[in-house]
């Protein structure tokens, strides 16, 4: 592949935007090439300027440019030298882009077909546009292109919109496609299918692309080579295999070591906490962009000359101490403490139902059928003291509803008991025992309150016996426990980073010494390195206090590092409950199997079975009589699936709700196949 001519060449590219305190260095010393038929992955954490690079290639800066230098060549044409008119001819025709958020990238007032026809007419003109459009829609795997033509964006699902964006990008068979986080907004199963599609198209048509993502796992699935970007500079470029097996730049290493892998439970690998701080952006750049965060920084060596991306040991790398780095080990988190299951459950839920939607007076007068969504259906689960129960499922599966019901935010029917006593109303005692942490720390902390106010509230409510001074002292203690300095008490949330805010949210939940904390997707919005730190914090606190956690997530990777048991939800029902220890072995619920196989991983030690779900997630407005997964199940048996499935109990708390008989389930192939080398020592 390296002998094919480059489609894109970026030479010494640098870009600065205007900022309130002077120019902000966005991109610096960028050199890369993408060859024909090659997909280059670009990976970086938030703030690494990976999207800015995409924008620079598209010649569409999002800030006020104060400095720009270098060249961006598209098959020899220097894009930086083109005027707006000339660019108009290049965009869409020779270079196109797939956006992160399909929901906002399509004009809501235009049909999907018109989007394509308009684009084709602009660049191709002539007739037969409709036929070409139909062909494109079929090409990106959209069923029934005819009807798709006349649909509006809001009438189709997120995955379908993303496919339309893909079709738009492909429309004029461009030389290069820039993918800007195309799967980040999608559910795991949908994202996996889109990745499959792109991969398939690439095999078919040999498109060249730049694939940007914050998720190494996703990039690993698709890219021929991967460039790691940090602080607006590329620090390392390598093919996926070698990169994962032997990351050489300290930043790449930190990034990888904080990412969970399927094989972690087998190898005993722990998540490391990266200390990579945001790169400096103002003033003169340091010789090595990572020097401020690098544990291996040696001024006399690293600061001697500008550290540029160079081929070192057959690897493009921007580090002069790579050899030393390779010898080091990174700090890692602890494994979950082995819990002794106590038979007395802490929380017991049985037959819990939550229904959303209300009937208006007018509806009642008109005697219209009541349209309501059953968000939670006949849910039963138990939580034991000191354990972590993970609840996984895609968006809309009801896992957050469960959290809201358990904390009194959603009215439910069914029974709930805490410590053996049935909870009739959410009284102060219950609320003080059961706390919740929300996904988004930006919205879960009142921006108008100081950290002290935020932390004092639960103390005032649940520990009224404390004096004012004791409460103040307690706040300091709590902050200490979440590894934050005491002076943070007087700060406001907006003065904190995302990870710090989440620590405050955690601190608030622990303030009243609860028995249970419900963590609702608390690591989802965070970069991997921050996620690792939060996971470790939770684990530490659990070890100290013995609190039980309900850990809600859609990310299967992190599960292994936090949970003792897992419950899988689909359409408001728990379809499977099992121990984490048995996660790598069948039987699985067919949905669990598909979900796990959709989770992208960068594990050089494992291989994932490819199982993809077709169709779209239905909405559960009526009581489904049968199996909720019936409409999309790859292992669907037949009509029987439309009746309520039986619950198989495989012992050890492993339960599966499925019509498939226990034996067949038990004989399913495992989702992950691990390399022999790691399997042996553990068996």
């Amino acid at each position, binding site marked *: 592949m390296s002998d094919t001519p480059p489609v894109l060449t970026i030479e010494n590219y640098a870009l600065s935007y205007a900022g309130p305190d002077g120019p902000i260095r966005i991109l610096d010393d960028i050199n890369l090439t993408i060859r024909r038929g090659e997909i280059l992955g670009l990976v970086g954490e938030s703030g690494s300027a990976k999207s800015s690079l995409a924008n620079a290639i598209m010649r569409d800066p999002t800030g006020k440019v104060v400095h720009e230098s270098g060249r961006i060549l598209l098959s020899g044409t220097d894009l930086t030298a083109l005027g707006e008119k000339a660019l*108009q001819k290049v*965009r869409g025709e020779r270079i196109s*882009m797939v956006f992160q958020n399909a929901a906002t*990238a399509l*004009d809501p007032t235009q049909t999907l077909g018109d989007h394509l026809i*308009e684009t084709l007419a602009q660049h191709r003109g002539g007739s037969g546009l409709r036929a070409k459009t139909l062909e494109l829609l079929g090409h990106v795997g959209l069923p029934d292109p005819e009807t798709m033509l006349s649909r509006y964006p809001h009438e189709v699902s997120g995955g379908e919109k993303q496919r339309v964006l893909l079709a738009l990008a492909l429309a004029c068979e461009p030389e290069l496609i820039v993918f800007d986080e195309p799967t980040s907004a999608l559910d795991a199963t949908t994202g996996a299918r889109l990745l499959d599609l792109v991969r398939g198209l690439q095999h078919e048509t040999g498109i060249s692309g730049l694939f940007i993502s914050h998720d190494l796992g996703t990039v690993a699935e698709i890219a021929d080579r991967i460039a790691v970007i940090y602080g607006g500079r590329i620090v390392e470029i390598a093919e996926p295999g070698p990169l994962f097996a032997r990351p050489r730049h300290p930043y790449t290493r930190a990034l990888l070591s904080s990412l969970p892998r399927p094989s972690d439970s087998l190898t005993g690998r722990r998540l490391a906490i990266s200390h990579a701080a945001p790169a400096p952006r103002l003033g003169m750049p340091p010789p090595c962009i990572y020097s401020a965060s690098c544990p291996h920084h040696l001024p006399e060596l690293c600061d001697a000359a500008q550290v540029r991306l160079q081929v070192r040991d057959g690897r493009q790398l921007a580090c002069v101490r790579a050899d030393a780095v390779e010898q080091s080990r990174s700090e890692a988190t602890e494994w979950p403490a082995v819990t002794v299951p106590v038979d007395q459950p802490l929380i017991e839920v049985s037959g819990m139902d939550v229904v959303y939607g209300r009937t208006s007076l*007018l509806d009642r007068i008109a005697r219209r059928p009541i349209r309501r969504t059953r968000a939670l259906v006949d849910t039963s689960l138990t939580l034991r003291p000191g354990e972590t129960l993970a609840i996984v499922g895609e968006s809309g599966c009801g896992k957050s509803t469960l959290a809201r019901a358990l904390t009194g935010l959603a009215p439910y029917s069914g029974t709930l008991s805490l410590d053996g006593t049935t909870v009739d109303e959410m009284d102060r005692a219950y609320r003080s025992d059961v706390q919740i942490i929300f996904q988004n720390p930006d919205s879960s902390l009142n921006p108008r309150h100081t950290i002290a106010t935020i932390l004092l509230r639960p103390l005032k409510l649940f520990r009224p016996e404390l004096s004012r001074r004791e409460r103040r002292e307690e706040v300091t203690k709590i902050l200490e426990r979440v590894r934050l300095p005491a002076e943070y008490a007087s700060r406001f949330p907006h003065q904190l980073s995302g990870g710090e805010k989440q620590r405050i949210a955690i601190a608030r939940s622990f303030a009243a010494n609860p028995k249970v904390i419900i963590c609702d997707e608390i690591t989802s919005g965070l970069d991997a390195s921050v996620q690792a730190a939060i996971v470790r914090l939770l684990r530490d606190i659990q070890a100290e206090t013995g609190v039980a956690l309900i850990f809600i997530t859609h990310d299967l990777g992190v599960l292994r590092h936090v949970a003792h048991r897992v419950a899988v939800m689909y359409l408001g029902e728990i379809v499977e409950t099992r121990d984490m220890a048995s996660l790598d072995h069948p039987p699985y619920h067919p949905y669990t199997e598909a979900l796990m196989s959709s989770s992208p991983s960068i594990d050089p030690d494992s291989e994932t079975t490819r199982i993809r779900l077709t169709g779209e997630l239905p909405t559960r407005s009526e009581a489904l009589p049968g199996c909720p997964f019936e409409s999309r199940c790859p292992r669907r048996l037949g009509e029987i699936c439309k009746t309520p499935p039986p619950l198989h109990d495989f012992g050890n708390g492993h339960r599966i709700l499925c019509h498939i008989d226990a034996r067949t389930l038990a004989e399913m192939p495992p989702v992950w196949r691990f390399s022999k080398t790691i399997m042996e020592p553990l068996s």
Partner: protein
Amino acid sequence: MSVTFLIRRLFYLVLTAIVVSMIVFGVTQVLPANAAQMILGEYATEEALAVLNARLGLDEPAVVQYWHWLSGALTGDFGTSLRTSQPVAPVIMEAFGRSALLAGFSLGLVVLISIPLGAVAALRRGRATDLAVSFVSYLGVSLPEFVLATLLLVWLAGPSVGLFPASGYISFLVDPLDALHHIALPVITLTIILTAHISRMVRSEMVDTLGSDFVRAARLRGLSRRRVIVNHALRNSLLPAITVIALDVGYLIGGVIVVEEVFSFPGLGRQLILAIQNRDLPMLQAGALVMAMTYAVANLLADLAYAALDKRIQFE
């Protein structure tokens, strides 16, 4: 959009009408003086008042009066004016027609002027054109109608320029050209002020839309600038502008009241001020109701238009 949605909105419309009529009625009950006193003026004697009150039905308990009015209104009979003894409905409808003409002309001009103006300002954001448009529209939204109207009256209808007649109204059926001539000044006043409002609105919507992902996406697909602006940015900016314009109908109605007063335009606004001054309850009721319904219907239509044009909006 469903039938239930329509039914519900119509139900709210009726509810609005009833609430408005009750408020207006309640207000007139506590107003000092009544229609009889106003009719008799300085000639009111105790006896004469009593006679007239009885004749106008003003001596009955408030609830009975309201019921009379309501039951009449429900059958389409809005009563006779206490002041002029003429049937209310035709007078109000005629006045409404004239006000609607005034408002319609203004609104038409406003749409023609303000949309391009707002769009151009947004496209040239921060540049001289934008600043000029912003300056003028700030002035427009900050100048009360009566000040502008009076200044225009002095200037354009004054003896030195004398471009337009100062006041009066000629029916379009009689002499369309003369009618246009007569309606010009009030229309110009309303147009200037509303243009300021709406072009500001269009500008800010357009600025938002221009910064939206789909406009960027359209641009990055290599679509022509014209197409990006007209088919994507402008189209999506105008949708929210429609609702704003509908809300501005309320503002327009207020403006119409003042402008009609200044230019002695025989529209609904003047009729209402007269009705308040003369405690002419049936006239006030009908006029206020027509105004409130105009506002409510304009908003309903805007919502419907929004729904028809923006397929995302789903009304239950």
